[in-house]
């Protein structure tokens, strides 16, 4: 009788111990697998040399009013436009309620005459036209994406078409009156 009881106690204890060992093994394996998989997944993220190229500087003193340049930053085009007084006035006069992605013009520029933004359509990544003379500028006098017909205004804001948001403004700073650093 005594032996029976002690045996069944032992079994219960064994089951508890075994469950604990099982769970502990499983948990350790899961942590180990995670620790192994994360470097593999993260190795596909931008590497140090790619990140090292993540800022670009440009001299803007030669850009006349009404002209734009395209700067390469992180493999993407950045549009820098020396806006005309008319374009600035037009961009500032639009009521926020008319915008698909409401943003006032002064939120998008540091100096009103310089518009700096990433020239990649927010729909599916094409390069909008309108940064060079003679290219179509769309119905709002800014940029026009030929892929699926998105129209951007003189502040680079989406006004018509499938793109969901305005052309993004990258982090940038004026190192002097003549030099801009993007990134």
């Amino acid at each position, binding site marked *: 009788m005594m032996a029976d009881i002690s045996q069944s106690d032992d079994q219960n204890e064994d089951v508890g111990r075994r469950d604990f060992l099982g769970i502990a093994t499983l948990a350790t394996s899961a942590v180990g697998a995670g620790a192994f998989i994360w470097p593999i997944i993260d190795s596909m993220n*931008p590497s140090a040399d790619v990140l090292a190229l993540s800022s670009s500087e440009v001299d803007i003193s030669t850009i006349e009013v009404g002209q734009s340049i395209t700067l390469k930053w992180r*493999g993407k085009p950045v549009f820098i436009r020396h806006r005309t007084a008319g374009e600035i006035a037009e961009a500032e006069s639009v009521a926020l309620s008319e915008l698909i992605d409401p943003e006032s013009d002064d939120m998008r520029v540091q100096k009103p005459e310089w518009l700096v933004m990433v020239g990649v359509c927010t729909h599916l990544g094409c390069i909008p036209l309108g940064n060079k003379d003679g290219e179509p500028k769309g119905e709002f006098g800014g940029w026009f994406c030929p*892929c699926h017909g998105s129209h951007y205004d003189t502040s680079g804001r989406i006004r018509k078409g*499938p793109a969901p948001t305005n052309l993004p403004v990258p982090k940038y700073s004026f190192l002097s009156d003549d030099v801009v650093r993007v990134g």
Partner: protein
Amino acid sequence: MSGPAPEFKNPIVRWIDVRLPVFTFMHHEYRGFPVPKNLNYFWSFGGMAMVALIGMILTGIMLAMQYTPHVDHAFDSVERIMRDVNWGWLIRYIHMNGGSMFFIVVYIHIFRGLYYGSYKDPRELLWILGVVLFILMMATAFMGYVLPWGQMSFWGATVITNLFSAIPVVGDAIVTWLWGGFSVDNPTLNRFFSLHFLLPFAILGVVILHIAAMHVSGSNNPKGIEPKGPQDTVMFHPFMTAKDTVALIAFILVWAFFVFYAPNYMGHPDNYIPADPFSTPAHIVPEWYFLPFYGILRAFTADAFIYWPVAWLMTPKLMGVLAMFASLGLLAVLPWLDTSRVKSCSFRPIYKWLVIIFVLDVIFLGYLGGKPAEGWYVPASQWATFYYFVHFLVLTPLVGWFEKPKPLPTSISEPVLDTDSSK
């Protein structure tokens, strides 16, 4: 199902077979594998797809020996294959057109399954494995098309990887991770090359499962009723192997026609312009086999009626992406959407026409997907997309309920022998 294990005459074969019964296995699965005796040529397209896969792997391995996966050299290395490598032009044209050939036979293979109800009990898993193969094929073909690093390669890769940016919150991080940078660039090309090499072998593995599942349930057939005994079947070898050989010769002739007489007919001339990250081609189109799905993707614009019901929940871009993936996912759940127990459309007077209209709708979507998103193409692609989903989600379940099927023959042999005893 199959006869007793064979006695192999050749002593070497016998010696091997005792230790590793590969010959017994092949005998059971082919010479001893019964298939319905009424199979038509639609049943040859699986074999053609297998030949296409093997052809793609062989030519692909040869191309990989000559190709350089680097943004500065990829385009030139492909031109070098075309001009300088012995038979390089032939190997590349076989591979390039082989992609299209593979999709043609797979589309017909899928149509066969849709029309004759091959997805129904007991072949649901077999069908789902087929959908998995289809999706793997699409991923492989997409990444392969990027490798020559022409304008369409680059911008196709840009547009398709940008689809993932529609995912809320983590979208942009996922896209950066896919690219390995901040745009489609050298890291992207390298990983696409690696995966384009890997995925065909994953496809081969799933193909083996697909065939293994088929050898459990046996082939469906144009009557959609299961064989009742040996009188309804013939052995796969030599009967189907002979028939498949005829089909294969025709298939290889078509493939050869394109390779030798119209090698660039199914490609896009813009892909012979080296990739330029600062200049988007006026009109980006994917390869023809993606066009119906591209049509669905683009159909969701802010003012589209199919977008209104979800306008409060998500952007049209996200809805387009979800719809495109859903259009493939619906194929996988088709066995449960179709409520009819009759497999073959030969006995389904209404659904037969719905399948045919559905195919026309997909072809129409493909036509629209290749056109610019303007004018009447836009509303037309919205209606065609609408119909695609109505077909699966409304018509297929409903018709199964009220359709009165034609009387099924009692066995496969009955209509063939025309005994007319059970009318």
